[in-house]
C-alpha cells in the first residue's frame, strides 16, 4: 500500500543526504519525495510517498524521526488530506493536432506554458491518478519530455499533521 508521510526537517545542508542514505540502507521503497521551504523559517517540509505496507511505513517514519535534523514525521495516509503533484509535459504538437491537444488540456485544466514550432509544454496539477491519466491520454500525441514533481500533501482543516507517531496496531488517529 501507498503511505504518505510529511516530515518537517531542518533546512540544512546534508539533511537530504541523511534521508536518502537511510532509505538506501534499509531498502525502503520510495515512490516520490518532494521538498521545499515550509511556512516556518529554517524548516523545510518533505512529502514522502512510500510503497510499503503499514508495518514498514511505521518503521520508515520511526527511522526518519530518529535523524537528529528531522523535527517531526507524520503519516497522513489515514488523515483527511489533499495531495497534489505537478507535471510539465512537452508534446510534439503538429499544427493539425494542436486544437485537439488543447481541448484535452482543457479537460485536465492543464495550462499551456510554452508554444514553440512543433511542440508545446503543458503544465498540469492534481493528484497522482489525475496526472497518470493525463499522461496516458496525451501519450499518443508524442511526449518529448516529461517532468513530474512528486507529491506534496497537506492535512485538511485547521489541524496540523498530528505530531505523534502512529500507534503500533493501527493508523494514526
Amino acid at each position, binding site marked *: 500500500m501507498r503511505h504518505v508521510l510529511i516530515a518537517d*526537517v*531542518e533546512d540544512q545542508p*546534508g539533511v537530504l*543526504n*541523511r534521508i536518502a*542514505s537511510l532509505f538506501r*540502507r534499509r531498502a525502503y521503497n520510495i515512490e516520490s519525495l518532494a521538498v521545499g521551504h515550509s511556512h516556518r523559517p529554517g524548516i523545510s517540509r518533505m512529502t514522502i510517498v512510500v510503497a510499503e505496507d503499514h*508495518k514498514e511505513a*511505521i*518503521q520508515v517514519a*520511526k*527511522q526518519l*524521526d*530518529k*535523524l*537528529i*535534523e*528531522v*523535527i*517531526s514525521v507524520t503519516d497522513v495516509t489515514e488523515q483527511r488530506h489533499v495531495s497534489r503533484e505537478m507535471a510539465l509535459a512537452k508534446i510534439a504538437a503538429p499544427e493539425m493536432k494542436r486544437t485537439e491537444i488543447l481541448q484535452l488540456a482543457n479537460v485536465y485544466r492543464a495550462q499551456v506554458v510554452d508554444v514553440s514550432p512543433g511542440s508545446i509544454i503543458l503544465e498540469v496539477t492534481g493528484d497522482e491518478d489525475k496526472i497518470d491519466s493525463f499522461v496516458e491520454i496525451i501519450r499518443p500525441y508524442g511526449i518529448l519530455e516529461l517532468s513530474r514533481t512528486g507529491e506534496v500533501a497537506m492535512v485538511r482543516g485547521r489541524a496540523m499533521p498530528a505530531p505523534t*507517531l502512529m500507534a*503500533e496496531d493501527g493508523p494514526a488517529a
Partner: protein
Amino acid sequence: MKRTGAEIILDSLVAHGVHTVFGYPGGACLPLYDALYHYQDRINHILVRHEQGAAFAADGYARASGDVGVCIATSGPGVTNLVTGIAGAHMDSVPVVALTGQVPRNLLGTDGFQETDATGVMLPVTKHNWLVMNAEELPRVMEEAFHIANTGRKGPVQVDVPKDVYLEEVEFDSVPPLSIRGYNPEEGLQPDPTLVREAAEVIHGSEKPIILAGHGIHYSGAYEELLAFAEKANIPVITTLHGVSSFPESHDLSFGMVGMHGNIYANWAVDRADLLISLGMRFDDRVTGRLEDFATEARIIHVDIDPAEIGKNVNTDVGIVADLKPTIRALIDEIGQLDHSPWVKQICQWREDHPSLAIRETEIVLPQWVIRQIYHITNGEAVVVTDVGQAQMWAAQHFWYDRRNTFFSSGGLGAMGYAFPASIGVKYARPNEQVWCIIGDGGFQMTLQDLAVVKEHNVDVKIAIINNNHLGMIRQWQTLFYDSRFMSAKLENPDFVKLAEAYGLTGMRATTKSDVVKVLKEAEKIPGPVVMDLVVDEVEKVYPMVPAGSSLAETIEGDEVQEARYA
C-alpha cells in the same frame, strides 16, 4: 575571551569530565595536538598504534565508565581507520565522540592531500555528525555532540573540523544552551502508565513468562530493578550477549544466555514461553534464530528507549518506549507477588537433563575449560573483555558473571580486533579492577600493535590468547556446513611469548592443563600487563548451537564426533 577552535574543543572535553582520550595525530589535526600539548595536566592523551584501536578503546572506556569515550584521528586515512570501531559503537549503542581533522576549508572538495569525505563515510555509522565550518559553531556543536552521544539510545558522533578551523580565533564566553528541536530524548524516558498497567495485566495472565534482559539494563543502570522485579514476579531471567552481567548468574532465576550459542534450556524456555518480557534488547537474528518460528506461543512485552525497535523484528503485544529503570519500577509497583515455580522447575529440569555448560573430563586442554579456570582463579572478579569468535562465546558461557557490567564484547558488529584495544579503554575506566582480555589467536593479530601502548603506560590488562591455531569459528562453520573443506581457517602463528617480549612485556605459554593453571595464577599476581599464550585443542566447537536459519527449538547440543573423541 579569544579562543581558538582547538581550545574550544579541549575546554569542552574538560567541561564534560573527559580526562583520557585515545588518538593518533596527522597533518589535519596537528593544531588540535598542539593545543593538547598545553592541556596535558588535564587531558591524558593515549597514543594508540592504529586509529581503529583508538575507536575501540574509546568504546571500551565508555561501556565500562558510563561516560562518553573520546577518540581522535586525522583526515583521510586516519578517519577511514576509525570506521570499524565507530561502526561497532553504533551497532552496540556506545556513546563515543570522534574528533576528526579535515583538510583546510579552501581545499575542501578539491581532492586535496588526505581529503576524504569524512562526514559522508561516517554518516551511516554515527548517530549524528558535523562538519564544522566556523569556529564560532564549535561551542554549540561540542555541546550537542556530548548530549546526543550520551542520551536516548546512545551512540557515536563525529565532529569533523578543518585544520584552519582549529586555528581560527573567535570570541567565546559561554556555551550556548542546548536546543535541538528534532531531538528530545527526555520526552521518552517515563513509561506511559496505561501501558504499564496493560503489561502488568499480561504478566498476571501468564504461566510461563521469561524476562529477556539486554544491553539496555546496563545503560539504564536498572540492575536493582531487574533483580527486584524478577524476584517479586518469580520470573526466570535469560540474557542476550550484551545482557550478560546485568543479572547475577548464580541467582536461582538465572538461566544464562539465549541465542545462537545460548544454553539449550534457555533457548527452549524462550521457545516455549507464553510471555517474553523483553527489556532493552532488540531481537537480533543471533538472538531469535529463524524469526518465523521465534517464540510462537509467546505474547511479547517490549520495553526499549528507541521507538524504532518496537515492532521492528517481532510484533509486540505491549510496546513501551521508555527508560528501563522507571519502567521496571512501575511494573514492580503494579504487579503482585507471583509464583511461577512449576515453570521455573521445568527449566531447572531441562538444565539438569541437558547441562549445556558441563565440561567433559579430559586431559586435552579444552578452551572452555580454560575460561572456567580464569573464572576460578580470579574468583569471578575479573572484568572480561572478549573478542569475536569461539573464545567470545566460551567467555560468555563459561565465566559466570555475578558482578554488574563486567562483560564487554563487540556484539552487533562482531569486529575481530575489538577486545585488546577495548580492554585498554576498560582499564582506564576501571583502574582498580582486574581486566582480562579473552581473545583468539586470530583476533589478537588484528590489533596487537597496541602492546606498545600497554607497555608504555603499564596498562594492567591480562591478555589471555585462547590459541587454537585456527580461526576457530571459521573452522567450526566449515566443519559443520561446508563438509570440512577447510579454507583459510588454519593460522601460521608467531611465537606470542617472544612477541610479548619484543614489546618488553611478560609473555607466558601453557600447553597442558597444569601449565594453564600455573600461568593463569602467575599472571593474576603480576602487577602489570601479561600476554598468555594458552594453547588449546584445535578442533573443539562451541555448543550449544543454533545453526543460522534454524529456530531456537532446533538448538544442537553437541556433535557425535566431538563426544566420541573424548569418550
